[in-house]
């Protein structure tokens, strides 16, 4: 009995020994930054020096129109881009799953490729295409679809469209892969039964495919939401530092610029990060509540 207890203790100790490296790494790279951010957030930081300002960073944030409009942009991209992308990914997944017999692998690769391409490289090409006198405008002008060149990078509203298109281009294929996997787990007999009952393809899509894919859609929407809240690359490179004139500034980019570019104000940057994390958390929670219950039933 006694021997068994000491063996248990040994096992216990051995277990702790085994997880020790990851505990240490977690402590150093996760716990310590989170705890120290509590200190940062109450201070106005300027390079090596800092002063205590209590909740001053949050008051400043509430009055900072650049931050508020960046937050607004995040919401806009979220509300417009995520539904667009999820719907597109779904349609593409269904087409790839049923509609196409040949070259399936090639199509799947072509659609997935943007997700693994470096945006830095691609944006150079995009910028050339999207200039006022760029190829896209020239093609549209020649086809008489527009009469004035569009300021894809230069006009505040169109630059937002550019960002949404670029994000959709980049992430549709990525989400489509999840939907493809989800589609393959749907029993084909359900479709056969629907076919017998005379349901059209469109009807099948909306009343069979979408309801049965709700868990996958939920996953896709939640990850895309947090991805959009952290949107950084596209506005930083494609529309150049959130341009034109901050029209595509996002919170992540503004945080980065406050910390590493404009002010070296790590306190203010940390405070803004807190707000963004809080908002992302609320969104994830709300989405799980809204869609999650239906997904489980």
């Amino acid at each position: 009995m006694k021997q068994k207890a000491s063996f248990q203790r040994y096992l216990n100790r051995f277990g702790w020994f085994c997880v020790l490296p990851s505990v240490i790494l977690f402590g150093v790279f996760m716990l310590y930054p989170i705890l120290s951010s509590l200190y940062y957030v109450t201070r106005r930081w300027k390079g090596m020096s800092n002063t205590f300002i209590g909740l001053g960073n949050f008051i400043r944030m509430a009055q900072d129109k650049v931050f508020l409009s960046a937050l607004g942009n995040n919401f806009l991209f979220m509300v417009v881009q995520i539904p667009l992308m999820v719907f597109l990914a779904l349609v593409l997944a269904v087409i790839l799953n049923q509609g196409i017999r040949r070259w399936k692998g090639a199509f799947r690769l072509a659609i997935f490729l943007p997700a693994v391409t470096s945006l830095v490289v691609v944006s150079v090409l995009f910028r050339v295409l999207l200039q006022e006198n760029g190829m896209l405008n020239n093609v549209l002008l020649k086809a008489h679809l527009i009469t004035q060149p569009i300021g894809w990078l230069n006009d505040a509203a169109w630059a937002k469209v550019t960002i949404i298109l670029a994000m959709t281009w980049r992430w549709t294929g990525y989400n489509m892969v999840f939907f493809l996997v989800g589609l393959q787990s749907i029993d084909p007999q359900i479709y056969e039964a629907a076919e017998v009952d005379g349901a059209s393809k469109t009807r099948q899509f909306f009343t069979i495919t979408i309801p049965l894919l709700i868990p996958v859609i939920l996953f896709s929407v939640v990850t895309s939401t947090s991805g959009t809240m952290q949107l950084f690359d596209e506005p930083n490179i494609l529309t150049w530092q959130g341009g034109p004139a901050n029209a595509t500034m996002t919170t992540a980019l503004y945080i980065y610029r406050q910390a590493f570019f404009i002010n070296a104000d790590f306190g203010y940057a940390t405070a803004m990060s807190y707000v963004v994390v809080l908002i992302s958390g609320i969104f994830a929670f709300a989405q799980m509540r809204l869609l999650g219950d239906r997904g489980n039933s």
Partner: protein
Amino acid sequence: MKRTRFAAIAMIAIMALTLGALSSCGGQPKMTDTVTVWCWDPNFNLYAMKEAVAVYQKANPGVKVEIVDMAQDIEAKIISGLQAGGAGLPDIALFQDFRIEQFLSDYPDAFVDLKAEGVDYSQFAPYKVGPMTVGGKVYGIPFDTGSTGLWLRTDYMKEAGIDPDAYLGKNLTWSEVIALGEKIKAKTGKPLLAYQSDNFDMLRIVVQSTGGQFFKDDGSLNLRSEAFKKSLALFKELNDKGLLYQVVGWSDWINAINSDTSAGFLNAIWMVGSVKSRPENAGKYMVLPTPLIEGVPGAANASNNGGSSWYVFSSSKNKARAVDLLKSVWATATPDNLEFYNKILKDAGAMGTFLPSQSSSNYKAGDDFFYKGQALSKDFASWMANVPVLKYTPNYVPMRDAVAHATLNYFQGKLATIDEAIAAAETEYKQVTGK
């Protein structure tokens, strides 16, 4: 059993080999000392430093210098390093003149005082030394000048029936330039100037040529000056008359210049490299002095854009060597060093601000690549002497961004008047800096 033993032997063998390799590495006595340099632009800064190192290595053959091209976010990387007490930083880094004051004020002990190391600053152009001076300490070695001029395509001028020779070497006013631009546009359809619409540089060139300042002496914003208002009005006029060919982004701007989209541009001497990179440009460009805004006292036919300087980090483990490299090549007037300055001017269009170097041969020579073999370097050097000094302050970047944003919105009609544009810039500046 046998297999286990084999595996064990193999393991030991691999370990022994690795250890051997490691020890042979560590066992080597350290004969060379290595200096690391961060900068950007392989054809300009990197090239110049490489040439400087070649000169240095003649006298110090054992020294190795590693020059790293930090094209993306060099400042962000340096801020991370400084924040970490110098971890991961190089020995020497290049800073844009307009950026350094922010670093000197945020990280006061991060850089080596080179005046204390015996550098003679009377031999450098004074406008370069100003931004790197805090109290009695001077922190950098000035590198290149950003002396500006109006670059014009003589072939389009001729096409529009204008004789380029009538303009060659002349000091123009902006109203004369606008008249010229309208003529060229009417005949050839080419807008006068390629303009990067998300960029502040051209506005800065114009404001600096008036002798205007973006900041008051106490460091607060100074946008309500007559010089600034006149400059903004001029830009609006250029824009409204269709004399600006607008692109977004730096590389696209370079691309626009090298694809015959405009009849010219307004920028600094360091554009020589980009213009020469396209053989078809040969014989076409001439460079006039920066145009003058009328009615502003203190305005000159000269301005500046860009320019950088070298700095040594206090955290450097090879500080003495790094300082010696900068001091003995960049700041000492030996025949070898003067030849070095002479060479980088010819090859890269990198005009140093080390005054003794300005009597070297390439500073006077004509350049056959330009219209009528214009002595480009000589002209830029002579304009450099008249450049009104611009105060940067640690808050130059947020000011630059706020003004650029307001200007764009003013151009696009989202801000109706100059006063509104100025107010918008002031508001954004205040919010971004939290002041």
